[in-house]
């Protein structure tokens, strides 16, 4: 009987040593893993102000925001109507056009395909715009409509709308 309490003591020591060792190792690894996340200066990439007074109806410009392209498009009447006519429930990523714009004629999008991150075509007059007359991603064939919503192809989601505000009628602040 004298042996049993001794074994228990040893078990306790063994278990507590292993536990403490595991916690210590995890605490040691954490800073290394965390150092790979975006650094403070990367996070503080900030916002961009854009003058939109020179954009004609039907024209679209590309600006750089946090290293990504952002599309700013002044839509035509037909394009707005086409975007509004769609039933949100029929879409892969259901969203009404009204939820994607602040002012009907101005569409602001992050120009990064939600499939694998290419920049879709459709900014230039000569570009392919896809079957829904919005944007077309040449990498794997995703088609977006005049509201930047995914309509056909492998992309799972609509083109993102970045946070933006109208500072006045001629200036948008993105971010």
């Amino acid at each position, binding site marked *: 009987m004298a042996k049993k309490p001794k074994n228990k003591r040893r078990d306790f020591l063994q278990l507590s040593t292993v536990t403490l060792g595991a916690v210590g190792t995890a605490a040691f690894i954490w800073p290394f893993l965390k150092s*790979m*996340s975006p650094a403070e200066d*990367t996070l503080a990439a900030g916002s961009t102000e854009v003058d939109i007074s020179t954009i004609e109806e039907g024209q679209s410009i590309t600006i750089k925001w946090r*290293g990504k*392209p952002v599309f700013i498009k002044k839509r035509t009447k037909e394009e707005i109507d086409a975007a509004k006519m769609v039933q949100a429930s029929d879409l892969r990523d259901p969203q009404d056009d009204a939820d994607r714009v602040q002012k009907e004629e101005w569409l602001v999008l992050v120009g990064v395909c939600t499939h*694998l*991150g*290419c920049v879709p075509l459709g900014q230039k007059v000569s570009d392919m715009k896809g079957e829904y007359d919005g944007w077309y991603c040449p990498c*794997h*064939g995703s088609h977006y409509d005049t509201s930047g919503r995914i309509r056909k192809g492998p992309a799972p989601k609509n083109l993102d709308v970045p946070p933006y505000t109208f500072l006045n009628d001629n200036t948008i602040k993105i971010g």
Partner: protein
Amino acid sequence: MDKNRKVHQFKNPVLNWIEFRLPIISYFKKEYGDYPMPKNCNYFWSFGALATITLVTMIVSGIFLAMNYTPHTDMAFDSVERIMRDVNYGWLMRYIHSNGAAFFFIIVYIHIVRAMYFGSYKYPRELNWILGVFIFLLMMATSFLGYTLPWGQMSYWGATVITNLFSAIPFIGEGLKTWLLGDYNVGNATLNRFFALHYVLPFVIFGVVGLHVAAVHVHGSNNPDGIDIKTNNDSVNFFPYMLIKDTVAMCAFGVAISAVIFFGPNLMAEVDNYIPADPLVTPAHIVPNWYLAPFYAILRAVPDKLGGVLLMFGAIVILFVLPWLDRSKVRSCNYRPIYKWFMMGFFVNFFALGYVGMLPAEGLYLLIARVGLLYYFGFFFIITPFVGWIEKPSKLPLSISDVYSKNITPNIGGGEKGIPSPAMQKDTNL
């Protein structure tokens, strides 16, 4: 400490001095001198040695390139151009390294084809196969990381597309991608870490190759007839026979790679990668390196983001369990009349997948990719287990020597009047 250890005696006293303290000389003598190789091994068995030589070449040329390369988004492209134009023999280092990568994959693909056709993955070499698939995975990761470094258009967009694959994972995908990139898109943080990892992974590969070789030496090499060595008559010593044979293979390989390095160094390069990376413009046509194209074809053949990613990685992971999917005890496809043709079909199919992986995913190409995808997985999940079940293998020779001796009949070859038959000549040569 083993007091009874028998210390190997050599004539050279220096060797004896070392051997007594570290028995490395007898180790090399045993593993690379007297090591018995099946005497029927053909040139397919030289590709392991070729792969090792190529790995060393890649590491050496890479170290010298790193001495002149700058891993910063503003300077990376220019530093590579400087290597090409101003650094003494920099162009040679870079062409050796870029074409060496392609040849490394050619060699390893042939090495894998060899292992599959002659059943080298079967008992008792399963762990060896698993280590090999692991090396293949590490190679793909390393080549992808390295392709990013020149910071051309294809570097940038290839890195973007591949890292975006991780965003397909539900819930944690976006966060994982950001963590891997160190930014919200491929940027300077990404380039820096890719360079660090690209430098270190080859040494990891080197370590796993060591295990891979040690593992194959435990049970010995497989051979074209897939039967074990039974007597000394079945084998030849590695030194000098196989070393000489591997050297011949190496010379042929040297001629092939030199022809490309000196006469067509950009044959396998993408033109778009000579345009500096531009985050605002995607090239019209993003193509992976040709040696990753079969897997890229699988990715694009699936019209669903997560599904495509899962099948692409699944296509590699499935290789790990091949030894357990194959039910047949016969190793070599030379003795498997049905499976042999499915196996060859698999190779052709893989080649076809690679071909369409380099072309736009539309129309006929997309259809071929989808059929290829079905055959790829069908081969592993249905054909391999099922054929092993129903197939009646041909009669195996009793021993490796038997492969040669049974052919010696007066009716074969020029066997009359003391001229040995071709089969017999082969036997004496070995």
